[in-house]
């Protein structure tokens, strides 16, 4: 994983309180109980802290997977390889 992917993986592990081996880029909202409404808030705050991008409320509530996060951030010029 490149730098930004590692940063994202570390961040989301902290956001969703996962052990490193529990995290994967294929993770979806329904897979873990910590990805609830509070998890969405923490995720949005964490992304802003780490990558400087502030999700709109519509974006944040529409995110269902890690890939959705990557897609939005990529569209804002943040690269993940």
């Amino acid at each position: 994983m490149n730098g930004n992917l590692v940063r994202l993986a570390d961040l989301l592990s902290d956001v969703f309180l996962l052990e490193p081996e529990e995290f994967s880029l294929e993770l979806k909202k329904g897979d873990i109980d910590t990805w609830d409404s509070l998890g969405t808030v923490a995720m949005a705050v964490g992304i802003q802290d780490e990558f400087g991008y502030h999700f709109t409320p519509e974006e944040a509530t529409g995110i269902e997977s890690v890939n959705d996060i990557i897609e939005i951030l990529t569209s804002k010029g943040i690269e993940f390889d």
Partner: protein
Amino acid sequence: MTKNTPFWSLEEVKSRATKPLVVLSTKSVKGIVESTFDTSVLDSLESLPDVLGTLIVVGGGALIDEAKLKNIGSDFELIAIPSLWGSGAEVSPIAVFEENGIKDYLFDEEMLPIAYSSIPGIAQSLPEHLVRYGCGDALSHALEGTLSPLGDNATRITGAALLTDMLDIGVKLDERWFEFSADACLLQSQTSVGVIHGIAHTIEPMLKNDFPHVDWGHARICSNLLWPVFSQFILESEKWNTFTSEFDINVSELSTTFKFLFNDDDYDAMRGYIIEAWPQILRHPLTRTNSSLIRRSHLEKFTGDFS
């Protein structure tokens, strides 16, 4: 700030309260309460009569919250009079309680008192450290409520004005803190609080259990967390710098105030519990609505020396 619970003067309370009237009070202010209402005063909710028109509760946040929980689905009317500022419980649709050693909270507008009031001079007899803790509690609500990620521009404007008013008065015995405390409580009930409260709610039962004869209350713990959280997470953040510039917050005075509220010996006692309970603190709902993400590695930010 608009409150759903109206303020009544003492004269209004006495004339409008539905009989039979019962007054419940914290022991520390029982004397002044008895002379105010010219009636005998209960000191426990356990001894409430079966037939009751109005219950007037006079006390701190914990007693008022206890009465609010009793109020849900009851036939009596509740009037709340705080004996000290801090929690703002008298105007809040949230009640905090402890069950099986864990602090939890309930949101229910049905618990709101029909009115709140004040007894002039009630806070005069209180010791200086309780006055200080009360100011710290109110400041922690104002700070975290203002910065909450669940707020909007309106709540930030309100919160900034409130913080400025609090700084103008300063940490001291001044009855204007009753109104600040109520406003701060309402603010955070509309937004949320953050890691100060996530930590406080987690370690308070632990401290009380291990030191039952020491007054480890919520306000004392929050007062001691303001400086560590402010200095480690807020002071250098871009979000905070943007906010303070926009709303002209006196950062230097805020820092001075939080340092004044911080006590080395108290924090030394708290530090071990923060370390021990860190996994629970991270999971606490209030930590998860903090204005910046609290990460596992951030434990080290709480273990330092803040003197």
